[in-house]
């Protein structure tokens, strides 16, 4: 299983913070996002705005390979400071 996290606007659009999707061989961040869209169409709406991705707490891009057990987080550009 892959644990998916959603923060800020993304969390509000998809309705909750924590999701689970099945792990698969050689899948990328983009594949995980496709799976999420099939699971719940609100993820498609979340993709209307710019999404950042972190895999296991490190920023990555959508071609990064995701392994079973990883934590993948989607969130908007950050606004701290």
């Amino acid at each position, binding site marked *: 299983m892959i644990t998916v996290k959603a923060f800020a606007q993304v969390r509000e659009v998809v309705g909750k913070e924590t999701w689970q999707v099945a792990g698969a061989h050689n899948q990328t961040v983009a594949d995980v996002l496709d799976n999420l869209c099939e699971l719940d169409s609100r993820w498609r709406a979340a993709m209307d705005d710019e999404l950042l991705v972190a895999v296991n707490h490190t920023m990555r891009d959508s071609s990064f390979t995701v392994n079973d057990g990883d934590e993948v987080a989607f969130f*908007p550009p950050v606004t701290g*400071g």
Partner: protein
Amino acid sequence: MFARVSDTDFNQQRLYDELVAGCAASPGGIVTFTGLVRDFNDNGKIDGLSLEHYPPMTEHAMRSLAEQAISRFALTNAGIVHRVGHLSNFSQIVWVGCAASHRASAFDAACYIMDTLKTAVPLWKKEFQNGTGHWVKAKASDADASLAWMKDNDR
């Protein structure tokens, strides 16, 4: 080095003392930056904000940032504290402290940490206006400032 997320306010003197106490060598200059909640935005008056974050990643990213700054600018110490949760107008949001032998390094490092924090640490502000919360949009100027440090390895 210290990097902390906090749900309570911080004290300038205590953070300054902690930075000095942790210095690897006698520092010549210390620069601090403190970010505060302003009582207005482009649309008028605001009534505080709330800060959401990604708990295990936030401190991890802040710690990496402090370590990068120490090595890049030859600092004798660096510290970052960022508050989360609800913050009323005029509250302290973030504190960055950099200690160095020479003042230019301390200034550059504090500037670098703030510019990079604004694009690389998972924190999000929601401002309240007339009872409604609005997510703050990331500024293009913040992205530009952060990018400039990546290109600017001669500085």
